[in-house]
């Protein structure tokens, strides 16, 4: 870079830093821009790619990455102790409808994706939320939700609209906070706690819609909802199973009662295509998950990709990735939008690497099937494809009284951890776990069991876990980089890819690793502990940051002395 450009750049940086007061919000239109300095929504942008245009950290400079700061987040109403996050804001802001009898787990794991907006990080764990100074991790405020209970398995993060934040709680509230102060604006119950729903999803803000999904293990109907960002009023509610006589898909269930208890919970964030106004998301497993009770049909719209118009709440198309699933293989995974030329034709596409070991590419405008391939090396439950591109199930691999040896495990080749796509390499990156389970049917009653009951399912081991790169145009695996000598685990947290030619993610040895996005070879690592969330990246003061969590500790890495001007 020339010195002339440096002189020009520096005052601009200074001015913008002084103008952008911390806690200031974002314009919803900003979410339509390519991902760069900030990280304003769950996947960074709407496409689900988790691809940042930043490239100050690249295949060469990544070797000089160094720790800028670290902070331990402590859940609960007391806060402050046990970390370097204290000394910031005042006391913990407490909300919630609970009696205060729910035990606090002070070291709640960070599984969510933080947001970075105007030099401020917004981070969540179940019942807890923080604003932190993105420069040093200092706490600006801490909000604690006194819960009524519910399954406290994770929180995936915030959605943001203007100056307001939105999070879900395990006891099914959508809570809106002021970004600047952490003070609560309102909370609305979005699913029934009595009916055993629990909510973990990071709300996705599209225009004036706050889109929120929920989860449930019990036999209840799944639904996706949209709320007004100002008032929290319900705008629309899309059920993901047939709920009334005449509803589409009802003929794939033995009865209306079975359909209405059929599951298909959309518990992870989806993606959004502004051209078609379609929000595209995955649905969860049918219930009961492992046993009879669902007839012989496909059980729509469980384990499917579903596209919904964000303004009307009407389903535009669906593609089922596990017809009549028998193994708790959700297809709730966040899909990825991309454009590519397939067979000489430019296509608008969406891909998903499903938990069942298969990879799918679908036309994102019409839902037309394009590609199905098996990416799970050991995946053994399929007998080829049906004419519609879905997988024909091998019934020998259904849960059986004498035991069936199935790969992947019910946990899947991938679970909630988001994949990534890099337009420079044209590759879709995903963690691939090749475990085997013996699944014993213990409930042979033709009525079936309930929820995830009715089986014993010990894991017997695995034959390797990989960071896997797939060409989504044809579904072929470009390469697999194995986590050394790991059976069925590893690769937790999800992935990030950048214009610096890198893929970042946790391995199986407690490292955050930077991989060459073209070859998969590891270039840099730091052993911070088991990576628990998807890494993000952002630009601050001319330095590109890498932010990642291991359990309840955040780590921010930078180039200590980067090239003076931005290489963007």
């Amino acid at each position: 870079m020339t010195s002339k450009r440096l002189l020009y750049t520096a005052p601009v940086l200074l001015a913008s830093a002084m103008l952008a007061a911390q806690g200031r919000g974002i314009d919803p239109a900003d979410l339509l821009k390519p991902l760069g300095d900030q990280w304003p929504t769950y996947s960074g942008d709407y496409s689900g790619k988790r691809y940042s245009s930043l490239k100050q950290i690249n295949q060469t400079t990544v070797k000089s990455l160094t720790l800028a700061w670290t902070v331990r987040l402590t859940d609960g109403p007391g806060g402050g102790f046990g970390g370097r996050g204290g000394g910031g804001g005042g006391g913990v802001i407490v909300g919630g409808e609970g009696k205060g009898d729910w035990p606090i787990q002070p070291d709640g794991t960070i599984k969510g994706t933080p947001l970075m907006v105007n030099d401020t990080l917004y981070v969540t764990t179940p019942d807890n939320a923080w604003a932190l100074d993105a420069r040093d991790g200092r706490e600006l405020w801490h909000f604690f939700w006194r819960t009524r209970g519910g399954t406290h398995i994770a929180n995936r993060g915030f959605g943001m609209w203007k100056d307001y934040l939105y999070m879900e709680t395990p006891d099914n509230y959508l809570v809106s906070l002021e970004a600047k102060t952490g003070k609560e604006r309102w909370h609305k119950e979005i699913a029934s706690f009595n009916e055993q729903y629990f909510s973990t999803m990071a709300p996705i803000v599209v225009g004036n819609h706050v889109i929120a999904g929920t989860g449930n293990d019990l036999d209840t109907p799944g639904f996706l909802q949209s709320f007004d960002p100002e008032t929290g009023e319900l705008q629309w509610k899309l059920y993901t199973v047939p709920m009334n006589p005449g509803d589409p898909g009802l003929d794939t269930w033995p009865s209306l009662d079975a359909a209405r208890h059929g599951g298909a919970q959309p518990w992870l964030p989806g993606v959004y295509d502004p051209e078609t106004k379609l929000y595209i998301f995955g649905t969860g497993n049918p219930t009961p998950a492992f046993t009879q009770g669902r007839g012989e049909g496909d059980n729509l719209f469980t384990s499917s990709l579903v596209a919904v118009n964000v303004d009307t709440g009407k389903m535009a198309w669906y593609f089922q990735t596990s017809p009549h699933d028998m193994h708790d293989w959700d297809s709730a995974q966040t899909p990825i939008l991309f454009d590519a030329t397939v067979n000489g034709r430019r296509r608008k596409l969406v891909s998903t690497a499903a938990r069942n070991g298969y990879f799918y590419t679908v036309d994102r405008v019409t839902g037309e099937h394009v590609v199905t391939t098996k990416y799970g090396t050991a995946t053994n439950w399929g007998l080829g494809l049906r004419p519609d591109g879905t997988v024909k199930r091998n019934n020998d691999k259904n849960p059986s009284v004498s035991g069936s040896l199935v790969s992947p495990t019910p946990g899947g080749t991938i679970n909630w951890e988001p994949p990534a796509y890099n337009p420079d390499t044209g590759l879709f990156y995903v963690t691939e776990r090749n475990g085997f389970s013996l699944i014993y049917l213990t409930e042979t009653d033709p009525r079936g069991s309930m929820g995830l009951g009715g089986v014993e399912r010990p894991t017997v081991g695995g034959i390797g876990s990989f960071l896997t790169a797939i060409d989504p145009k044809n579904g072929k695996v470009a390469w697999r980089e194995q986590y050394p000598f790991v059976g069925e685990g590893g690769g937790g947290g999800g992935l990030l890819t950048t214009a610096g030619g890198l893929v970042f993610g946790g391995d199986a040895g407690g490292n955050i690793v930077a991989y060459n996005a073209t070859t998969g070879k590891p270039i840099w690592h730091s052993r911070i502990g088991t990576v628990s969330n998807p890494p993000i990246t952002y630009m601050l003061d001319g330095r590109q940051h890498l932010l990642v969590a291991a359990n309840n500790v955040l780590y921010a890495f930078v180039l200590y002395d980067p090239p003076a001007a931005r290489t963007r």
Partner: protein
Amino acid sequence: MRPRVPIPSRYRLFAAVACAVSTVVLAHAAQTPQQPPAPPTPPPQTTPTQPPAGGRQGGGRGQGQTQPGTFPAQQRPPGDPALIERGRGVYTATCTACHGADLRGGQLGGPNLLRSLVVLNDKEGELITPIVKGSRAERGMPPLPLPDDDIRAVAEYIHSVLATSGRQGGPPGVAAPAPDILTGDATAGQAYFTAKCGSCHSPTGDLQGLATRVADPRVLQTMWVSGGAVGGRGRGASASGAQRKPITVTVTAPNGEKVSGRLVRIDHFIVTLARDDGSFQSFRRVGDSPRVEIQDPLAGHKALWSVLTEKDIHDTTAYLVTLK
């Protein structure tokens, strides 16, 4: 107080009249259980003084803490045992034919009450009572002329069963015996064993008395497929009683010097081994240097997983259970 069990005769009379169709079905059901050869599912025996079985679900919370139930169905304080007992009696006489002795749906097609959104939202019968009185007659639920306090008792009984629901939406634990997993052909299993397992294992050597040491065929099968401890994790003594062989590693430095020991950990960047004297040694890895060779005693089992058929597994287990 009303008498508890059996229920008042007038309700038995009612049951006989209102469920005239069902008496036939009930008699049929008694002779032909839904799940032969298992006996008919008995009504759940709730013990309200015990904490709900689901009360510690939700996963991975600290030990020794007193935690309320995860969801309202399990957070509910134990009901009056007398009221529950009375409700059980009314339920058995009046509701079983349609909703099942275990509340999970019956011969006459009544819905599963343990996943009923009405039941899940009901507190003290306020949502259940109108339905019992006929508000859903057009959807097949006949009006039942029960007094309010009997309906209240039935609601309390239903809630007492719901409180014992299992983890992750599973039903209450049922007393029915686990199905017998032994369906394979022992002769075919012996042939498979000889061909595929005989190079490492022997029925008169390491596996002598295996089925005596591991009496449960399901545990035995999971053990032999995984190649050791159930669940395929952990070190040391396996379920077979034999000391499990450790995974070993040999590290060869560029100068040819070799160090061997038990593998402690390995990733792309570090390999650590434990020597026989208990000391540890770790090595930095850069690409393929130093050379690392792992000897995995389970390699044979891992190679089998991708090719084993269910028939091979079940036949081999049928053979192995004969190794008393």
